[in-house]
C-alpha cells in the first residue's frame, strides 16, 4: 500500500464514497462480526467478570506462576528472533546475488516451508526429536550416546522448531531490502577504498536495516503469540502465553482470566506494531510465489 493509486480511474473517475462503501461492505461486516465483536466481548469479560475492575490483569501480572510464563514467552521470542536472523542472513544474501534458476530454487526453498502447514512442520520436528526419534537414532548409531536424550519438551527444542517455522518471515524482508540496493553501491564503496567487510558495514548493512527491522519485528510478533509449536514441542513444561490461554479456556474454563492474558498479549503486539509501524510491510509476504 505504499504506492499511490493511479489517478485515472474506472469510468475516468473514482467510485463515489457511497459506491466505495458498498464495495467495502462485505469486508467491513465480516470484520465487525467475526473479528472486532469477539475480541471486544473477550476483553469486556476480562474487565467486568467476576466484578468490574482490573483484578484479572493484576492476577496475571502478580502471581509468580504466570509471570514466569510471560518472561519465558519474551525470552523464547527473543531467542527465536536472534536465531532466525542469524540463519536468514546468508540465505537472503545468496538470494540477492542469484538470478534465474538458482534464484527460483532458493525462493522455492523459502516459500515451500512458508506455505506448508505449521502442523506438518511441527510434527516433523517431533518425529526428529522424540525419545526414539531420528536424532536419537543417529546419535546412537554413531555411538555418541548410550541412551536416548530428552530433546522434546525442552526450551531449546521450542526455540529451534519455532525459528525453523518462522524463518521465511525473516528471509523475505531482508532479501527484498538487499535486492533494492543497487549493486553499484557496493562497487562504488570498494572503488573508494572500502574492503568488502567495510563496504558491508558502511553501506549494505545501513541500507538493508529497514528489511532487518521488519523481519525481526514480524518474527518477534508471531513468536509472542505462537500456539501450535509451543503446545506440541514445549508441552506443559515449557508453557508460553498462548498455551496458557488455551489451558485457562479449555481446562479451567476461566474466560475472564484468559481474556486478561489475551489483553496483555494484544497490548504488547499493538505497542510494537505502532512503534515500528513503518517497518511492518505485510504485503512483502504475499504474491511472492
Amino acid at each position, binding site marked *: 500500500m505504499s504506492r499511490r493509486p493511479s489517478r485515472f480511474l474506472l469510468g475516468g473517475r473514482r467510485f463515489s464514497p457511497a459506491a466505495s462503501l458498498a464495495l467495502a461492505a462485505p469486508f467491513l461486516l465480516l470484520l465487525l462480526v467475526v473479528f472486532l465483536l469477539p475480541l471486544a466481548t473477550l476483553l469486556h469479560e476480562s474487565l467486568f467478570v467476576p466484578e468490574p475492575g482490573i483484578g484479572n490483569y493484576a492476577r496475571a501480572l502478580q502471581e509468580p506462576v504466570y509471570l514466569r510464563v510471560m518472561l519465558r514467552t519474551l525470552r523464547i521470542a527473543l531467542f527465536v528472533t536472534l536465531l532466525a536472523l542469524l540463519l536468514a542472513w546468508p540465505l537472503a544474501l545468496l538470494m540477492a546475488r542469484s538470478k534465474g534458476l538458482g534464484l527460483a530454487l532458493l525462493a522455492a526453498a523459502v516459500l515451500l516451508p512458508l506455505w506448508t502447514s505449521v502442523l506438518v512442520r511441527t510434527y516433523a520436528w517431533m518425529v526428529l526429536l522424540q525419545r526414539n526419534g531420528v536424532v536419537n537414532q543417529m546419535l546412537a548409531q554413531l555411538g555418541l550416546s548410550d541412551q536416548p536424550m530428552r530433546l522434546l519438551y525442552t526450551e531449546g527444542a521450542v526455540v529451534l522448531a519455532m525459528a525453523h517455522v518462522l524463518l521465511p518471515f525473516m528471509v523475505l524482508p531482508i532479501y527484498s531490502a538487499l535486492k533494492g540496493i543497487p549493486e*553499484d553501491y557496493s562497487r562504488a564503496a570498494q572503488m573508494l577504498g572500502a574492503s568488502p567487510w567495510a563496504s558491508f558495514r558502511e553501506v549494505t548493512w545501513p541500507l538493508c536495516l529497514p528489511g532487518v527491522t521488519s523481519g525481526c519485528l514480524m518474527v518477534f510478533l508471531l513468536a509472542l503469540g505462537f500456539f501450535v509449536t509451543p503446545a506440541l514441542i514445549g508441552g506443559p513444561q515449557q508453557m508460553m502465553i498462548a498455551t496458557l490461554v488455551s489451558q485457562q479456556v479449555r481446562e479451567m474454563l476461566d474466560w475472564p482470566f484468559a481474556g486478561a492474558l489475551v489483553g496483555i498479549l494484544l497490548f504488547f503486539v499493538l505497542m510494537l506494531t505502532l512503534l515500528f509501524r513503518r517497518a511492518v510491510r505485510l504485503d512483502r509476504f504475499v504474491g511472492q510465489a
Partner: protein
Amino acid sequence: MLTLDPGRNAGSIAIEGLVKRFGPVRAVDDVSLDIRAGEFLALLGPSGSGKTTILMAIAGFEYPDAGRILLGGEDITWLPPNRRNLGMVFQRYTLFPHMSVLENIAFPLKMRGIGRAEREERARDALRTVQLEQMGARQPAQLSGGQQQRVAIARAIVYRPRVLLMDEPLSALDKKLREEMQIEIKHLQREIGITVVFVTHDQTEALTMADRVAVLDHGRLQQIGAPRDLYEAPQTEFVAGFIGETNFWSGTAAIAAARGEAVAVRLDGGGVMPATAVSPLPPGGRVRLALRPERLRIAAGGEGLEARVTEAIYAGNATTLMLQAAGGQMLRLRIPAGAGLPEAAVGEAVTLGWQAADARAFAVTP
C-alpha cells in the same frame, strides 16, 4: 583547487592482450591499449562491444581470462578494487542515500584512516572544486541529477587517485545538461591533470571530450586515435560507419593499389570513380567505398555520376539532399550554408563528384 603532483608515469595504464569470455562469447578479444598519464581516453562502441568490460577489468570488478593490466608500470590485474586506488564515477549516481553530501565525499578518506578534521577539510575542498560548496549538509536525494553527478566526481577525486574511470556518467542527464557537463568535466580533468578513461556509446560525446578515442566492436579494438584521425581517416569500415554519417557503396577495384594510394573503383551501379585505398587492393578485388555527405559535391557540369534529388531537408546551417544514383543507390549530400556551393531542387537531375582523398576504399574480405 585540487591538483596532482606531476609524478613520473604514475597515471599511465597499459592493457596487454586482454581477453574476457562470458560463456562462449568473447566480450573482450585480445585488446592491447596504452593510456598515457594525464590523457583523456574515451572507450567508444555500441552495446556489447566490450568497452564496459574493459573498464570493469581496470576497476577490478572483472578478472580477465588472459592478459594483464599495468598501472604506472605495476601489475594490478589481480588486485582487489579497494586496493587499486582508482577513482570511479558510475552511470547512475551512486551516492550513498544514507549519508549527507559531505559524508559521501569524506567516505573514501575515512576508508583510508584519515582523521575527522582533515577528512572534512579535504571533502570541503573537493566540493569547492565541483562548485557545490553550499550543498555539503544536503542529502543526495535533495540534489538535481547534474549536482549528484558532480558530487560523485568530487567523491572520486578527493583522495587524489591517478586515474579516474567514468562509466557513461552523463547518460542519465538530459541533453543540455549533458553538454554543459561534458565541458565541465573536460575542464576539471585538465586542471587536475588526472588520467581519465571514459566509457560512452555516444560518438559526439567521445569526439568532444577525449584526447584520444578507442573504438571497439565485438570485443575487438578497431582503431585508436585523435578524434580528427578517426573522422577523417577511419581504418575500418566499422569505424567509418560508426563515427559520423557515411554513404557506403560497393564496387570493385579497377587497378591494383597499395595502402594510401589513389585507386579507381568500378561502382556496382555503374560508373568509375576515384578513391583512396585504406588497405592494399588487388585488381578486381571487391571494395566498400565510404564517403562523408559533406564531401560529396554537385559538379558544375562535366564528368561524374548521374543522380536525381528525391528530398531536400533544410536545417539552417546546412541543407541535406537525398539522392538516388543511376544504379538505384541512395545517397546523402550535405551543402553547408553560405559557402556559395551549387544547390539543387527536388526532382532535379544532377552530376556528382568528389576528390580521391575524400572517398576511402576498404577491401572486402570474402
